[in-house]
């Protein structure tokens, strides 16, 4: 499809405001004004509607397609949460209102949403306090590691290293690095963290360790109590990457299990839409000893039931967001938690784990599952059988697209060859899982007879495989290059 800029017709009227009485040249010196026009398109409203409706039809989304994308928790996003987020009482609220003395009274509803959401997340995770400020999962990681750094600095500890298991998301080492730490890679054993391996890298310079539990193989880290004890021995803190929180709601609380910091991905576990890659939200919870270091501001409740923002935390890491995080995303998550309640959240976790295990058993005869035991909410299979790779994960992924499915996560985690990571989530029915398994089994059978069937996929989509090398070399990042 042509770009929207190519569809521009000079002079065509869009959604224009009234004509102003004065213009920039009447009010500002000529030297401060732009020379050439920005050359934005001139289109009618219908031109724009046609163009973007057309573009939307080139996409897969959860509403139209099963999305078993491991580690991303692509569950259904209930529509009523969108209604909530669009309430004018919330959307029109200026974020600086509460900074005007006394004006906190103008936004009590919003402050109450923030306060109550923090309380609910504390209870779900067993943490002492939460901040809603981080604007994405990776941002939550960075905030959490900054809190770890502030804790050690305050105690006078000389700590320079963060341990990250090899099964972790790539964001973990990048976040630790940006927070100023050296990253120590920890190899896993039999799919999980091994205390003996940990002992080899654990010393007094270790500030903390970032764990995903269940880990990215979908396996529960059953040595956790031992790991907690070892870290305590050197005053190192334990970080919980909440990307996989959907596996443990009501079954484990990370605070009770000994973690000091946790970030959640509201766009995963708490059903806010992924939006094609954002916005998300990555709230961070901490244990009691880390509360003084949380970002400012913090919402508090007074005895008379009023809410206000407190900026007076001298040990705080400071500001990680301009205001209070992605409030519009928090609203959706808050409404979702209220709707499900205690039983609903537990049921979501149970169904997510049940569905993952069911799909694993349906597929483990046709795909190798390297750690073929009870998994949590996701599992990792390999396209290779006994290290013989007849078909590639990428090709399976593309063939699935042709069948109307989004592909599973591929080539992650790096420790499994030709990895395919499946996470069906709790919102998909047994019929969908069965149809998906049948279709995948058929694809693999066809691929064995006729490899071109998968290597030539996809065939039914707007484009076939794209030349990524050319994209990186030509760097054509805009319509003007």
């Amino acid at each position: 499809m042509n770009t929207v800029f190519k569809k521009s017709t000079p002079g065509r009227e869009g959604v224009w405001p009234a004509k102003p009485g004065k213009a920039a040249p009447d009010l500002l010196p000529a030297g401060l004004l732009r020379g050439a026009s920005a050359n934005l398109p001139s289109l009618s409203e219908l031109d724009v509607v046609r163009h973007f409706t057309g573009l939307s039809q080139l996409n897969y989304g959860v509403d139209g397609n099963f999305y078993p994308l491991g580690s991303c928790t692509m569950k259904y996003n209930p529509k009523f949460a969108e209604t909530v987020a669009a309430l004018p009482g919330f959307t029109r609220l200026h974020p600086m209102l509460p900074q005007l003395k006394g004006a906190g009274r103008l936004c009590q509803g919003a402050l109450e949403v923030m306060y109550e959401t923090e309380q609910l997340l504390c209870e779900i995770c067993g943490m002492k306090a939460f901040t809603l400020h981080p604007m994405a999962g990776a941002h939550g990681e960075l905030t959490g590691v900054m809190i770890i750094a502030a804790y050690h600095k305050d105690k006078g500890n000389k700590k320079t290293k963060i341990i990250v298991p090899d099964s972790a998301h790539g964001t973990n080492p990048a976040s630790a690095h940006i927070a100023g730490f050296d990253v120590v890679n920890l190899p896993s054993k039999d799919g999980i963290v091994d205390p003996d391996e940990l002992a080899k890298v654990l010393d007094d310079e270790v500030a903390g360790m970032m764990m995903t539990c269940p880990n990215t193989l979908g396996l529960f880290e059953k040595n956790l109590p031992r790991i907690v004890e070892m870290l305590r021995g050197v005053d190192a803190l334990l970080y919980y990457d909440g990307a996989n929180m959907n596996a443990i709601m009501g079954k484990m609380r990370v605070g009770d299990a000994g973690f000091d910091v946790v970030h959640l991905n509201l766009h995963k576990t708490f059903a806010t839409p992924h939006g094609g890659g954002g916005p998300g939200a990555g709230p961070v919870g901490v244990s009691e000893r880390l509360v003084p270091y949380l970002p400012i501001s913090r919402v508090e409740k007074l005895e008379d039931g009023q809410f206000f923002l407190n900026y007076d935390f001298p040990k705080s890491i400071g500001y990680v967001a301009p205001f209070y995080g992605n409030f519009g995303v928090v609203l959706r998550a808050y409404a979702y938690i209220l709707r499900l309640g205690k039983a609903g959240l537990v049921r979501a976790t149970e169904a997510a784990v049940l569905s993952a295990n069911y799909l694993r058993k349906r597929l483990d005869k046709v795909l190798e599952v390297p750690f073929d035991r009870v998994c949590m909410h996701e599992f990792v299979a390999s396209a290779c059988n006994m290290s013989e790779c007849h078909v590639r994960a990428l090709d399976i992924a593309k063939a699935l697209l042709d069948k109307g499915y989004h592909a599973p996560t591929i080539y992650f985690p790096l420790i499994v060859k030709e990895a395919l990571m499946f996470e069906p989530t709790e919102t998909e029915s047994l019929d969908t899982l069965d149809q998906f398994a049948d279709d995948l089994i058929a694809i693999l059978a066809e691929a064995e007879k006729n490899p071109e069937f998968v290597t030539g996929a996809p065939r039914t989509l707007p484009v076939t495989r794209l030349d990524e090398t050319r994209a990186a070399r030509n760097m054509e990042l805009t319509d003007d290059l």
Partner: protein
Amino acid sequence: MPYVPHTPEDIRRMLDVIGAPSVESLFDEIGPEMRPKRFDLPEGQSEMDVLAHMEALAAKNVSGQVSFLGAGFYDHHIPAAVDALSMRSEFYTAYTPYQPEASQGTLQAIFEYQTAVTRLTGLPYANASLYDGGTALFEAAMMSVRHTGRRKLVVCEAVSPIYRVMLNSYTSNLHLELVTIPHKNGVCDLAALTAALDADTAAVIVQNPNFFGAVSDFSNLFASARAAGVVSIISVYPVLQSVLKTPGEMAADVAVAEGQSLGLPLSFGGPYLGIMTCNKALVRQMPGRVVGRTVDGQGRTGYVLTLQAREQHIRRQKATSNICSNQALCALRALLYLCLVGQEGLTRTANLCLERAHYAAERLTAIPGVARLSGSAPFGNEFAITLPVNAYQVIDKLTSRGVVPGFPLGRYYAGLENALLVACTEKTSMESIGIFAEMLRGSL
């Protein structure tokens, strides 16, 4: 149970296939010492009840105020089609476009967004967006540190204090030196900024219009920076970029912006949109996602995420940033906004903002004891005034009468306790400006 479709019969069939006696048995690996000590949450509610609760909370926020509060975040009109189109589920329920063949809609939209924002700033390259304007400014600073190998950042004090405190937090563990050059009555001190540039300086960071609303031409500062091997970073207000001299025309190296004003509601602080554009020398230092144009096996045009060798999933701790998402839906909204208002509509919007703000400045400074902080310095849609009394006093009085008069500059700037920052947009009516002026006159 809402949103979980499994019937008891489904669950039985699934457990049979798994060979597990019960759902609970699937959690056996979570030992007793790791089990929750409590899980004391409320019972679930019907959709109707949750909606009623949320409506009641929304109603606790006061509405209907006439507001002159901006400070970098502005209440602009959002065409209805922005909501209608961005709420198409194919956009908002999609994931990051890692499977490009099934994500051409998202990818082409981001490519078009990248094009639109480069046209606004006049710099040729853009990324797919970042969390917000403050994050974009920090990431721009880090680009300059990597590019130059230097560790000092020279920042104008008239850059948004909200962004400067974020810079402080982020750089505190990275052994970077932040040097802040004081503003002069709300205007950037160009001579002092120029004098501060030296062989250790990675970047000079300014904002246009600055936090006080003042508009400047930074061309000479940026030329001096270039001569000293210093990267020039400028934060801009995208709506006014339709009329103001562009970062490209000033020869900046990186231009960032808060994109909220382009079709995103204020929504109490987020989600917002961090716009980042840069010149060619810095492209490979850009953080986050980038979309590029290419072809498929049949030679048809298509779009992919590109330059991924910079990113965390490949480079791990050596990545240019830990950011692994963009604000795709917000970027889409900004693009929709720019397409719907178009060249003429955005220019009109900018001019209306200027016109209203200049009228407001005229009306307010006609009140005895009220003057512009920056004298006759040029300004855009926002300006600072000094009052004969503490600004909080005026805010207290006027907000209780339905007018939010602006932002008290003393909140961030010592010595400016009597100064008020006043913003207008195309939504600010001439009548409301008159009411504000009369109310202020009466309160002094």
